[in-house]
């Protein structure tokens, strides 16, 4: 019985170990994203977005410049992993504590081992 409990505990720890870094990485990713919007120069577009997304946007400069000045908002992140692809997830952001519904989700994918924003997809 102790062996069975140990095996179960090991499996549970493995699952949590896989899930926990993903949440931390998402928070870090979107903190960098907010820095890009704020115009901070020490964050590069390729630190946040996939190469495909940067190329389609017209290059790094087009993504790091020209953002409208907005009030700094603290967001609640809702993270939804893909059911079929462990390197794909969806993030919805709403102002912290609000009951607003997000109209679209960020698509995040793993590119060379790092989570990056691939774009967004409209929600129904």
């Amino acid at each position, binding site marked *: 019985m102790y062996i069975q409990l140990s095996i179960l505990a090991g499996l549970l720890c493995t699952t949590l170990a896989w899930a926990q870094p993903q949440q931390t990485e998402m928070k870090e990713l979107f903190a960098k994203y907010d820095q890009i919007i704020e115009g901070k120069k020490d964050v590069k577009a390729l630190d946040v977005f996939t190469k*495909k*997304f940067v190329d389609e946007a017209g290059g790094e400069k087009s993504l790091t410049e020209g953002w409208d000045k907005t009030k700094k908002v603290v967001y609640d992140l809702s993270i939804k992993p*893909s*059911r079929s692809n462990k390197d794909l997830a969806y993030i919805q*952001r709403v102002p912290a504590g609000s009951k607003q519904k997000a109209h*679209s989700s960020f698509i995040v994918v793993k590119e060379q081992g790092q989570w990056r924003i691939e*774009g967004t*997809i*409209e929600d*129904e």
Partner: protein
Amino acid sequence: MKKALILLIMAQALTVSAKDCAHCVTTPTWLSIFNPFSLPAVPAPEPLIEIRTPTLARDSGASYCRRNTEVVDTIVFHHTQTPSTSTVQNINTLHLDRGSAADPWLMIGYHYTINSPYAGGTVPSPVVNQGRPFNLAGSHAGTNAYKPAGAETRRLMALDGAMRCGRATGPLTEASDKFRDGLVKANYNTVAIALIGNYAKRTTENPGGWRANSPRYPSASTIEMAGKLACELQRQHPRLTTIKWHSFYNATDCPGLVKDRIPQIKAVAARFGCTFN
């Protein structure tokens, strides 16, 4: 003389019945014999465009609704908000991740996608792919979106068999949510066409949108393709006479500046004999 005339009529009847084109509608030989004034075969119009039918994965545990296609009277335009290089398979994968494990989506929520070069872009010509089959209700306008519909649509929708829903593993039963306060559920009487791309303005929640002073419209070739698709669908489903867009049904930026090009899409359809409200 009379015998010669009879023989002549019979010979004509046999000739009329010969099928020498794939799309011809002809009168059966036996009928032609009794109708010396049979009209020559009239070829049916060639399809306006090619609609590709890729194999798309489905979630066999998902619920879906099979509908009487006559209830469909409205085309709804969307943009996917994804990069324009996304494929219909990419969108299908993204939509399969919608919902929950207990209540997943069947497959892509749109019925047709048009891969869509941006105006001024250099990608290949637009291509139309079928997504969700026309006889299945889509997932695109909003689960809680209800709108007024015409009397005939309401009559058809009220009939038993108009909308049968369930899962593949069980029986389909008539949907109980077809109407709400006299309004019709939008996903039920509409067909969704999605332009693959991002035509909304850039915001913090839509970083792939167009920047201020550089609005992004669909290319002329995409508008042409959208108009032809709309007309082709009307030819197949004559009750399809209205064109709307996603933000008509829901508070959303979708379909961005595609909405501004709806009049041009209707104009293209009109060139091929199709009229839309």
